[in-house]
C-alpha cells in the first residue's frame, strides 16, 4: 500500500474550496476576505447596495447604567475615512430598524426606526442656488449648526408597537430632527470631532424613563484578521493578529432605553429575555431617470437619479454575527436577508450541519463534531446558540421540540424563561437576559469570549462591542461545547484569529462605539510607521514583543504599556528597535495564572525622523 503524495492535501483543499459557493461561504467564517467580515458585504444584493448593508448588531445591559439596555446596529462597513467629498451618509430613502421580540413569537413587538433627511446647502444654479460647491464643508466645522457644514443629515427616530393582527400602531416620535454626526473629515475641517460627536447624542423621553439616541459614523468595532482564510489553507500565518478592519469606519445607530421598556409587560423579573435584530428596508419600487433628464429642481427624499415608491421591504438583516456568512450558503444569502425570524426554522439544517467543521476535518483531520463517536448527531449546541438560547428547559428538551437539549443546564437567555412565552418559536436573533449584571474589560470575570469564557454577560447573552465573536464562533463550531474532555477539546478551545480587540477601545459612556477614524489618518499600508505586536503567556509569564516595525522607527524605542482597569495607562518597560524592525528584547510580565492583562506597545521613532509615535491596539491576554 503506497502512501499518497504530499501534494494531495493541498489539491484536496483547493478542490474543496473551488467546489462551489457553499464551500466558499462556509470558509468565510474563517476568512471573510475583503468581501465579508461579520456581515460586511456578505450577500450578492448588499454588495450592490452598501448604504443598506447591515453589518453588525449589538445589545447589552449598559455598563454604566445597568437599569438600561443599549441597542446598536452598524451599516455600510469598510468606510475609508478620507473618502470625500461625499463620505458615507445614511440613505435618505432607507429605513434603519432595530426590532425587539419579547413574547417569543419571533415577530417584532417593538421596532425602533431611524429615517434620515439630507440638509444639502451645497447648491447648484439648476437648484436655485448661485454658489454650488463640491465640498462637504467650506471651512472648519466646530458645530453641527455651523454654516460651513454644507451637507449634513437629520433623522427621525420612531418607536413602533404592534396590534394583535401585526399591523403597526401609530408611531411614537422619540427624536425629531435629530442631529446625525457628520463625518470626521480631517483635522483641518473637524478639529474637535469629539465635540461634534457629543452634539449628536440626543436625549430621548420614553414612557419608562429617559434614554439616549445616536446616529453617525464610528470606528468599526468588529475585529478579526481577514487573512485567516490562509489559516484554513494551513499557510504560514506567523503574523496573525492584524485587525483587517482597523482604520475603517462604519455608520452606527444606537439607542439606550430603560430595560423595562423592552421586556414584556414592563416586568423584567417575570419576563427578562428579549430577542433583538436589526434590518434595513427599502421602498419596493425604484425608478431611474432617463438619459439626459434635467436635474431635479429641488432636493427631496429622492436623489437626482433614483425615485423610490411603494411599500417597504427588507433587504438586509442581522441578529447573531457570522450566521449569514458561516451558516447560510452563498445562493441563499439574499433570501436570508429578506427573511423574517419567525420563518427561520427552514434554516435549521444549515445551522445543525455547518460546513466549517467539514473543511477543518478535511484539512486538519480533526473529526467533525457532528459525528463524534461515529454517530452522526444534530448539533444541538448550534441550535441553542443561534435559534433557541439557553435555559434549563432547553437543556432538558422540554421546549423548542428538543432543539438544544443537553448543551448548557443554565437559565441564561432563552425566551422560554419569560412568563409570557413558555413555548417560544426558534428564531435567529440575539437574545439578551436584561437581568444579568454587565461586565466590561477590566471587571472581575470579564471575558472577551463571553459565555464560552465563563462570562454570562457576554455573547451569546446579547452581544457587547468587545465580544470576540470570531473566536467564539470558531470554537463553538468546532464543538467546544459538545466534545468530550480531552486532547481535541483542548485544541479547539484555543482556536482564534489572534485579534482580540478592535483597534480603538470602546468608550465608557453612550454610545460606547469609538470615535470614527479621521480623514487625516493614513491607513495601514500608507502610514510611514506600522508594526505588529505579540503577547504570549506560559508559566505565569507574559512575553511581549513588537516586530514588523516599519523603517520609519529606526533608532527609536518601543514602550510596553499596561491598560489599567480604570482605563489609565501604566508604563511597564522599554525595548530598543533593531535594524530588522524588531524589538531587541522580549519584555516579560509575571503574574498569577488566570489573571487577564491588557497590554499594548507604543512605538516612538528617533527624534527628527519625521514620524509620529503610534500605539498598537489594546490586547487582553489571560496569564497561563
Amino acid at each position, binding site marked *: 500500500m503506497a502512501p499518497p503524495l504530499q501534494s494531495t492535501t493541498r489539491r484536496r483543499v483547493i478542490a474543496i474550496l473551488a467546489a462551489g459557493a457553499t464551500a466558499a461561504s462556509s470558509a468565510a467564517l474563517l476568512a471573510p476576505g475583503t468581501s465579508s467580515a461579520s456581515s460586511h458585504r456578505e450577500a450578492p444584493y448588499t454588495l450592490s447596495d452598501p448604504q443598506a448593508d447591515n453589518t453588525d448588531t449589538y445589545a447589552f445591559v449598559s455598563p454604566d447604567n445597568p437599569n438600561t439596555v443599549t441597542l446598536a446596529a452598524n451599516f455600510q462597513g469598510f468606510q475609508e475615512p478620507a473618502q470625500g467629498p461625499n463620505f458615507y451618509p445614511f440613505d435618505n430613502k432607507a429605513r434603519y430598524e432595530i426590532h425587539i421580540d419579547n413574547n417569543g413569537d419571533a415577530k417584532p413587538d417593538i421596532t425602533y426606526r431611524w429615517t434620515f433627511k439630507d440638509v444639502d446647502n451645497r447648491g447648484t444654479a439648476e437648484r436655485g442656488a448661485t454658489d454650488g460647491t463640491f465640498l462637504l464643508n467650506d471651512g472648519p466645522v466646530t458645530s453641527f449648526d455651523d454654516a460651513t457644514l454644507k451637507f449634513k443629515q437629520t433623522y427621525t427616530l420612531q418607536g413602533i408597537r404592534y396590534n394583535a393582527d401585526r399591523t403597526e400602531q401609530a408611531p411614537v416620535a422619540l427624536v425629531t430632527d435629530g442631529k446625525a454626526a457628520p463625518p470626521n473629515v480631517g483635522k483641518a475641517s473637524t478639529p474637535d470631532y469629539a465635540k461634534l460627536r457629543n452634539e449628536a447624542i440626543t436625549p430621548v423621553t420614553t414612557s419608562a424613563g429617559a434614554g439616549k439616541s445616536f446616529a453617525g459614523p464610528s470606528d468599526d468595532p468588529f475585529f478579526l484578521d481577514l487573512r485567516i482564510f490562509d489559516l484554513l489553507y494551513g499557510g504560514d500565518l506567523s503574523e496573525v493578529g492584524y485587525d483587517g478592519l482597523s482604520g475603517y469606519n462604519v455608520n452606527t445607530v444606537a439607542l439606550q432605553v430603560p430595560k423595562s421598556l423592552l421586556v414584556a409587560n414592563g416586568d423584567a423579573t417575570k419576563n427578562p429575555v428579549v430577542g433583538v435584530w436589526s434590518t434595513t428596508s427599502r421602498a419596493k419600487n425604484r425608478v431611474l431617470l432617463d438619459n439626459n433628464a434635467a436635474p431635479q429642481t429641488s432636493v427631496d427624499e429622492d436623489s437626482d437619479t433614483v425615485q423610490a415608491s411603494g411599500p417597504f421591504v427588507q433587504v438586509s438583516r442581522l441578529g447573531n454575527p457570522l450566521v449569514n456568512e458561516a451558516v447560510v450558503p452563498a445562493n441563499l444569502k439574499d433570501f436570508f436577508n429578506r427573511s423574517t425570524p419567525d420563518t427561520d426554522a427552514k434554516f435549521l439544517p444549515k445551522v445543525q450541519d455547518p460546513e466549517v467543521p467539514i473543511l477543518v476535518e478535511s484539512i486538519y483531520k480533526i473529526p467533525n463534531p457532528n459525528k463524534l463517536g461515529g454517530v452522526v448527531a444534530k448539533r444541538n449546541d448550534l441550535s441553542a446558540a443561534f435559534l433557541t438560547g439557553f435555559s434549563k428547559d432547553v437543556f432538558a428538551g422540554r421546549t423548542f421540540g428538543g432543539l438544544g437539549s443537553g448543551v448548557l443546564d443554565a437559565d441564561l437567555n432563552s425566551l422560554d424563561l419569560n412568563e409570557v412565552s413558555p413555548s417560544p418559536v426558534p428564531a435567529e436573533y440575539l437574545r439578551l437576559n436584561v437581568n444579568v449584571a454587565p461586565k466590561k474589560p477590566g471587571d472581575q470575570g470579564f471575558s472577551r469570549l463571553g459565555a464560552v469564557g465563563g462570562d454570562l454577560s457576554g455573547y451569546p447573552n446579547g452581544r457587547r462591542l468587545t465580544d470576540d465573536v470570531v473566536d467564539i464562533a470558531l470554537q463553538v463550531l468546532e464543538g467546544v461545547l459538545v466534545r468530550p474532555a480531552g486532547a481535541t477539546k483542548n485544541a479547539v478551545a484555543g482556536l482564534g484569529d*489572534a485579534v482580540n480587540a478592535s483597534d480603538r477601545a470602546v468608550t465608557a459612556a453612550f454610545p460606547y462605539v469609538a470615535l470614527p477614524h479621521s480623514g487625516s489618518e493614513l491607513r495601514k499600508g500608507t502610514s510611514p510607521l506600522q508594526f505588529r505586536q505579540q503577547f504570549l503567556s506560559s508559566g505565569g509569564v507574559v512575553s511581549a514583543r513588537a516586530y514588523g516595525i516599519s523603517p520609519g522607527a529606526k533608532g527609536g524605542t518601543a514602550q510596553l504599556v499596561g491598560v489599567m482597569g480604570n482605563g489609565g495607562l501604566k508604563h511597564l518597560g522599554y525595548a530598543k528597535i533593531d535594524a530588522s524592525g524588531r524589538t531587541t528584547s522580549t519584555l516579560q510580565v509575571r503574574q498569577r495564572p488566570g489573571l487577564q492583562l491588557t497590554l499594548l506597545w507604543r512605538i516612538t521613532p528617533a527624534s527628527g525622523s519625521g514620524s509620529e509615535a503610534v500605539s498598537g491596539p489594546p490586547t487582553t491576554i489571560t496569564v497561563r
Partner: protein
Amino acid sequence: MRLAPVLVCVPLLLAGCSSSPDGPVEPELPAESDFAQGTCREAAPDLLELGRALPRLGDDSTVPADVQQVLADVQDRLAFFAEAADPALAGVLPTLVERIGGVRIRAVGNSYEPSLGEDLQAAYDEALAACTG
C-alpha cells in the same frame, strides 16, 4: 484588568535564552526493521519522521515552520494508513492523526500549547508500542 500593585514587570534580554545552545535532544527511536510487518512497517518511515519532529515542538506558542510542514505531510500519509490499518493499530492510528491535527491547527495560528504536544507524544508512544512492542 487589575495591574495594581502586585504586578511585577521583569524586562529581560532573551537573546540566546529562548532555546538551548545544544538544541533539542535527538530522541532514541527504533529502527525501521523493528516495526511489525503490515501497516506498522509501511508507516514506519512516517512514524520515525514524526518521532524526530516531536522534540522540536518546543514550549513556545509558535512551532517552527519546517516542523509544521513535517506534521502536515506525515499526517496526510498516516491518515491514509489509518483508513485500513491492521487491528493492532485500528484505534491507535486515528487518535494519532487527530492529535497531530490539534497541534497543527493551533500552531498555524501561533497559539500552540505544550500540553497539546504532550497529548500528541502520548498518542505517538502508544502507536510506537503497538508497532514495536
